[in-house]
């Protein structure tokens, strides 16, 4: 992969254990600008755990993370944000009692010159970004607990997109969505790709993987089975990797 220049992200030899369980065991993955890398595997394969090391929620026991070729220290979510890494969590990580704008800007509030939160400006900005992502979104005044699954999802996506991320982590972004909204997310991913973002996509639906991803890294029991170029393999090959932990012969 070195012919493509410096990777945007390189997670090298990452290990993390909880008690005696090795959740992630010496895994190396990378991501280039304008690329979507799918992360696949069974539930409990270690995908989310691996990615949480990048977003700062967990701290790896061993291994290094390189951003643009430079060693990065990511001790908490604030550090990750400083590296322009944005994450859409599987749980969405929304504060249910706050409205959409407050969630969108949580931790990065717009403030007035006096240092006070500028709710009106944040709501105006939220209206702008939501008009782009989900034009049907109207409920700006209610807590997000009153929103539907799809609407909540769009708030979480808006949060990741608004702050000009360079690296986007999407943990099952379409799990709660209907077909129409899934299509909107797919279009969004295409658009972000064109803008040169690197995207890690954790996804269970093999059809979405084949459609959206450039490469796929498959994990099983905390270990990396292999990374393949999606256009060189069939969905059966990938399923074989997920279920049997077997790398297809032609790429291996």
């Amino acid at each position: 992969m070195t012919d493509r220049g410096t990777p945007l992200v390189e997670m090298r030899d990452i290990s993390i254990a909880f008690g005696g369980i090795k959740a992630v065991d010496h895994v190396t993955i990378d991501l280039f600008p304008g690329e979507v890398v799918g992360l696949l595997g069974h539930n409990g394969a270690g995908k989310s755990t691996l990615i949480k090391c990048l977003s700062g929620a967990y701290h790896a026991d061993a291994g290094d993370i390189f951003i643009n070729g430079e060693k990065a220290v990511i001790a908490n979510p604030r550090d990750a944000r400083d590296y322009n890494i944005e994450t859409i969590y599987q749980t969405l990580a929304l504060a249910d009692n706050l409205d959409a704008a407050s969630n969108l800007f949580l931790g990065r509030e717009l403030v007035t010159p006096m240092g006070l939160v500028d709710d009106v400006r944040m709501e105006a900005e939220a209206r702008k970004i939501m008009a782009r992502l989900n034009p049907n979104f109207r409920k700006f005044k209610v807590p997000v607990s009153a929103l539907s699954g799809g609407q909540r999802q769009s708030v979480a996506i808006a949060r990741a997109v608004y702050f000009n991320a360079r690296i986007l982590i999407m943990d099952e972004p379409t799990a709660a969505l209907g077909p129409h909204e899934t299509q909107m997310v797919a279009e969004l991913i295409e658009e972000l790709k064109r803008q040169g973002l690197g995207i890690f996509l954790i996804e269970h639906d093999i059809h979405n993987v084949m459609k959206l991803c450039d490469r796929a890294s498959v994990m099983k029991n905390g270990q990396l089975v292999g990374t393949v170029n999606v256009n060189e393999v069939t969905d059966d090959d990938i399923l074989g990797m997920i279920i049997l932990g077997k790398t297809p012969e032609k790429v291996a």
Partner: protein
Amino acid sequence: MTQSTTSDKAGASGAASPHEGPVTRFLRATELDTRLIGMIGALLLIWIGFHAYGYFVNGFGAFLTPRNLWNLSVQTSSIGIMATGMVLVIVTRHIDLSVGSILGFCAIVMGMMQVYVLPKYLGLGHPLIWIIAVLSGLAIGTLVGAFHGWLIAYRGLLVWRGAAFLVARGETISPVDSTFALLGGGPYGAVGATGSWIVGLLACAGIVFMIFHGRSQRRKFEFPLRPVWAEVFLGIVGCGIVIGAVLLVNAYPWPKGIVKQYAERNAIDIPEGGLFISHGFAIPVLILIGVGIVMTFLMTRTRFGRYVFAIGGNPEAAELAGINTRWMTVKIFALMGFLTGLSSVVASARLNSATNALGTLDELYVIASAVIGGTSLGGGIGTIYGAIIGALVMQSLQTGMVLIGFDAAIQQVVVGSVLVLAVYLDKLYRSTSK
């Protein structure tokens, strides 16, 4: 921000439905919190109920008199100040059972300072004594609170009561510095008629300014405006309440003995029929109002307040959003400690002494005030004004039952039942608003 009222929902769903009744339309136009209206309704019901009971059963309605309401306002202050801090603690899904003990400890420290320590160095009656004493009390409260925040799981209930005992050897420390005593209220510890009018007019000016400012902000960002009649209505009601309060506190004259003492000291001749000197707002009440304004500002206009609500709504999400939740907890408990220290100033000044028992079981009243005022024990929801009204409700019940001569045992039953009812209503309210 945390409101999830019907008015909000109606406002969010866009155009006015043609079928809505006048009440719904009124609520939507004024954007008033239904919960606030409910609390004020309950409060008025309690007041009128006790007055009527006294009037019909005992032949004298003592509740709705300037004297009782003035005293009620002073009694509410100590609990009210702490309740505003407890809102933050409960909103972030914690509970603080140590406030009563910290209050006692702060009071003892301040008492020791002004009775034994400072006079030795500064001389008795030195003007700095009360300032240093208050500052030391606030500092102690803040430090203890921060320490608790740091320990979080640790509860200092008995530790600080014990510490207070050690410091004072169980003695009652009295009398406190005379300036310090003013902070507790009483005839001299009030701002008088003119002062009250100044406070009242400032408050009215503030209300009018907020209405105009809010309108211009909404216009700037092209958000829907409230109808003019609703703005005028809010302005008139707000100013009306303020002016009513001023008239009320000014209608309560100093007792004859105090007037006589005052007249002798200032060489004033008391005219025929006595001299009418108004109490005006008591200083602790003004402290409570000031605390209420500052805390409301903190909760709704600063990042700190936003993070408090975010942590209450979803601690994990707050952490993932880059909020340092542990440091926030320390800050919240430190603030609670500071407010307890302040409350301790009011409580010990009012008694004119610091005793080891001061603040015993206050934590229950403080928590009850916050919960009655709409702070959800599940976290994430609560308002400062609600907690203050809650404190007023608790104190009204207490005072009312004393006035009509209920047994202490029944009083406790009633207070406990009200708390259970408040928790039940909170549960009901949240399940319907979701």
